[in-house]
């Protein structure tokens, strides 16, 4: 099932760690602090556990929203974007 992961985390180092974890699970960045991609129930839970561990005692919130195919068809966007890569969002070297 497609999953949306969004987070608010203040400390840079922890935030980078969590964005890296999202990428490890094959998710793609769609906003500065939002990732999206395919995760089955097991992998979603696994990612949640690992993110929980990475967050530790730091202040922050992470949400996981599974989205079913039926609702996926209703997803909409409004966009005016220059063609930029936001991959460097969490202070990593952009590529």
């Amino acid at each position: 099932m497609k999953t949306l992961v969004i987070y608010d985390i203040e400390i840079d180092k922890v935030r980078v760690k969590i964005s890296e974890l999202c990428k490890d699970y094959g998710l793609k960045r769609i906003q500065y602090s939002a990732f999206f991609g395919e995760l089955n129930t097991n992998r979603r839970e696994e990612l949640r556990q690992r993110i929980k561990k990475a967050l530790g005692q730091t202040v922050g919130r992470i949400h996981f929203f599974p989205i079913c195919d039926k609702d996926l068809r209703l997803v909409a966007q409004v966009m005016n974007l220059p063609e930029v890569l936001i991959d460097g969002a969490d202070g990593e070297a952009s590529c």
Partner: protein
Amino acid sequence: MKPLDLILDSPESEKQHIILSNFGASLGKKSGRLVVREKGQIVTEVPFDQVEQVTVITSGASLSTDAIEECVRHGIEINLLDFRGTPYAKLFAPGLTATVKTRREQLLAFNDQRSLFLAKSFVRGKIQNQINTLKYFAKYRKSARQEVYAYLQDAAILMEKNLQELTGVDGLNIDAVRGPLMSVEGRAATRYWDAVAFLLKGYVEFPGRENRGATDPVNSLLNYGYAVLEARVLGAVLQAGLDPYAGFLHVDRPGKASLVYDFIEEFRQPVVDRPVLAMAIAGVEIGMEADRLGDGTKRELLERITQRLSASERFDGKKYPLQAILLRQARRMASYLRGDQKYKPFVCGW
């Protein structure tokens, strides 16, 4: 950042085959992802569990030990190929699959009927696949190029006779009949390549089949393709717990993985000949540099072969990707040697 549409529409991700083809490329690990860098810039990043295989086809590449370790843990094979496409090294976990019983039976089989049965199966599979490849290319020329259609069909009919000859080849073990068996195989092959030359007329210069040292485009593609396939076949044979150096049809030669040369016979036509002939007929530019395939062409061929390996074919009444069939056949050979199962050569449809 990718627009959401792209991500929403992305199909279920298939596992990727990573190819390092540019001089100086490096393979590394970042967090839980395999990273390919060129000139210090990241060019590809894939989570380890979405990687199928890694193939290095260039010189001057580097691999980090962390990346190697993670690949091995995930069961990702790393194949290193030289400029001819021949695998000169392969990285996988030691002691992954060796089962003593399989190997013991494999060596014992050499002296009994099993060696003959397997060797005959490989040859039968090869000839049948050659026939089906001719039929496959004939099919599309039935109306457009009548003379080619007729020529290929005739060759196929003659090769069917070679197949029938196989039934008469019989003896105590493979050593007793290697000559006659190789002779049938050789005569069928001559007919096949003669038909291929007729098929390619007008598309590309093809001087007939040449193995080593060929300098023409089609033979170079075939040789490179077979070498790439060899790496995959070696992987399948090892995974099935067989000894790659103890073949049946091909004689033992120190340092030659003769079982690989036996077993590869069932797969040459479906995996390599089809994409190569299709490339030649479609007029894809085959770049040569000093009598050798150019780097771009090697990559193009490798990608086509990889595609071919993920394409599904009928096997055992179901559809499987060719690479899965390769593994299943290897396991089946092992299980035949252990006396658990029958063995039938893989024959690709047309």
